[in-house]
């Protein structure tokens, strides 16, 4: 009997180590692919003013400042966030136990403090559980407008399901850890020598009645089952999140750090055009070495900057941008969230393409504008910056829209007729309307 148990224990250890190594490899491979697809974007320096950047990251990502614009949701989200970060400390113990075949390896060293530590984690776990249940009800029952696929076509299918899967995942993980602790406490009370005496924990003690009448063996099996469910769930979640909108839990930090520091109204300059304009105005001589860019603006993801692409992976599809977008509010096709989701979808396709072709992207006759984002969408933007203002992780959908417009207008010379009229007026009259420049000062007659 004794031999069987230790054999079982060693087998568990082996399975655990194989699982851990496998998951680490999968996550590493995925992270590497994401990194490589972000880096197919154009270079853009976002390393200036590190102090200011760090402060932004601490305030917005670490401190979740923008989430608290809506205090109740902000608080619930904070509960999930803080729970997630701190419960990971407990995962360290679980991983060590798994590798070494120990049980609650920190309990002897930490002594009486261990009870409080696990108790603290249980309170956090309960917070996560409560918040996720509320979020799931909000998503499914209460009908929050910005999550409804009937109203927002980008939420159809997978995105809507993804949002719910994540919440169910977290609920299952929290229930696993709480019932595991409860079963553990019952086993302690039975005097099972394997279960070190720590005493009952603050939340899971209320789950103990679930196990009344269970015999020791069944309890051990359940405790092991819950332990495995919890850790295997975490492993599965780690892999899953790299494919999911949930990637924001990692990328929110770098994404806020590298966010724009300039005023929102400022558009990025195109220096490649400046030299040409200078030549046209006779301010500079034709520089024979000046390189004509192969493309003006952005047609596809590789024409965007790496930060635009990181933005796309950081989007958690909450839809606050779209909810604030004047074009979307009034029923236009534009949805800033869809701009970000389309950019990511394109990136995922490019990533798969790269994987299938030995790391190199092979052109597939598709482009971000046209195949993913429609011209009608980018034309509807008023550049009001409401989407940029709303994003809790400082994503800038407007920057992408404007680069796509530059491509349509300058590279394809496809602008609405009335815009072409406006351009023509600007070129000939230096005003967007058809007025003679000589009449520009006529208003002064009204001053008398």
């Amino acid at each position, binding site marked *: 009997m004794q031999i069987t148990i230790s054999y079982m224990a060693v087998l568990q250890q082996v399975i655990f180590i194989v699982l851990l190594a496998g998951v680490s490899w999968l996550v590493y491979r995925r992270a590497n692919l994401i990194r490589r697809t972000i880096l197919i974007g154009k270079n853009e320096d976002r390393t200036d003013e590190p102090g200011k950047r760090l402060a932004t990251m601490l305030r917005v990502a670490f401190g979740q400042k923008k989430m608290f614009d809506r205090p109740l949701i902000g608080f619930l989200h904070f509960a999930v966030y803080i729970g997630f970060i701190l419960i990971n400390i407990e995962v360290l113990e679980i991983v060590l136990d798994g590798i070494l075949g120990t049980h609650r390896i920190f309990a002897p060293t930490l002594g009486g403090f261990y009870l409080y530590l696990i108790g603290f984690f249980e309170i956090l776990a309960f917070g996560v559980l409560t918040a996720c249940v509320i979020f799931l009800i909000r998503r499914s029952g209460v009908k929050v407008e910005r999550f409804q696929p009937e109203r927002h076509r980008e939420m159809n299918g997978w995105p809507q399901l993804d949002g719910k899967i994540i919440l169910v995942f977290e609920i299952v993980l929290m229930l696993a850890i709480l019932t595991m602790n409860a079963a553990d406490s019952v086993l302690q009370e039975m005097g099972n020598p394997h279960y070190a005496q720590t005493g009952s924990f603050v939340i899971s003690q209320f789950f103990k009645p679930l196990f009344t009448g269970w015999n020791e063996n069944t309890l051990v099996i359940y405790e092991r089952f819950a332990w495995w469910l919890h850790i295997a769930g975490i492993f599965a979640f780690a892999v899953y999140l790299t494919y999911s909108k949930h990637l924001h839990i990692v990328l929110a930090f770098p994404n806020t750090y590298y966010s724009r520091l300039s005023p929102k109204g400022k558009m990025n300059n195109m220096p490649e*055009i400046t030299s040409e*304009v200078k030549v046209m105005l006779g301010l500079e001589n034709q520089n024979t070495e000046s390189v004509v860019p192969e493309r003006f603006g952005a047609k596809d993801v590789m024409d965007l900057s790496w930060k635009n692409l990181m933005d796309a992976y950081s989007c958690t599809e909450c839809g606050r941008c779209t909810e604030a977008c004047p074009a979307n509010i*009034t029923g236009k096709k534009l949805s800033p969230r869809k701009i970000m989701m389309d950019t990511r979808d394109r990136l995922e396709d490019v990533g798969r393409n790269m994987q299938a072709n030995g790391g190199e992207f092979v052109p597939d006759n598709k482009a971000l504008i046209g195949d993913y984002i429609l011209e009608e969408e980018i034309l509807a933007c008023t*550049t009001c910056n409401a989407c940029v203002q709303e994003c809790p992780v400082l994503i800038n959908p407007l920057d992408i829209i404007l680069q796509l417009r530059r491509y349509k207008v300058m590279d394809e010379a496809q602008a609405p007729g009335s815009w072409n009229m406006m351009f023509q007026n600007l070129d000939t009259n230096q*005003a967007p309307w058809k007025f003679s420049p000589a009449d*520009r000062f006529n*208003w002064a007659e009204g001053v008398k």
Partner: protein
Amino acid sequence: MDQEVYKVPTMAEMAASNETPEVLFWVGCAGSFDDRYKRVTVAFVKILNKAKVKFAVLGTEESCTGDPARRAGNEFTFQMLAMSNIQVLDMYGVKKIVTACPHCFNTLKNEYPELGGNYEVLHHSEYLQQLIDEGRVRPENGETFKGKKVTFHDSCYLGRANDIYEAPRHVLEALDADLTEMKRSKVKGLCCGAGGGQMFKEPEKGRKDINIERIEEALATGADTIAVACPFCMIMMTDGLKNKEKEDSVKIFDIAELVAQANGL
């Protein structure tokens, strides 16, 4: 009543008499050509005269800043206009600019430096606030706004684009107006629908026009005056008001016009 004589000196005149103005008033295309906004230009010029500000305008030497071209995606036209404006501004040695148009303001302030044009740029809401704070302008001899319900519509290019929310409100408060906020204001302010080149084309297909959505919100405050600080917002909101057939009971004014009215100008 003695007729005040208002002056509108141009930079060329100033340069000819070897004078340097305190500030250049950048009028902008709407301020120069749009019949409604020309009245705002005139009101602001009267205030500058009253406050004895030594200012000048470029007159026919001014061109569009290029903002609508840039937002619509036409960087060539933008840079052509920007470069020639910078040439003119630098030729006159301009250091400080005030403008009543948030789009001109944003472009001059944030986008000209990269093209070599560096100036101190103020929006007229900031400038009016300064004049009021310095006591150079105070509401007197004019219409009283005490107890009048006024709502302020934030311009995107002033608000979110440049984080200016308080200056126009301070100006309105200085008039003793009863400032009522719309449901969406300041950082949450809803666009009038004109930015990003929309002013110059038909909107895309949708359920509703943006300016209608916004005017409904403004009317819901019960204010009888809607204050704006942007020529595009002025046009869009006025159209919205006409659509709602409320032009008789509700008026739309630029903050400069309200200050001028309070001063009997």
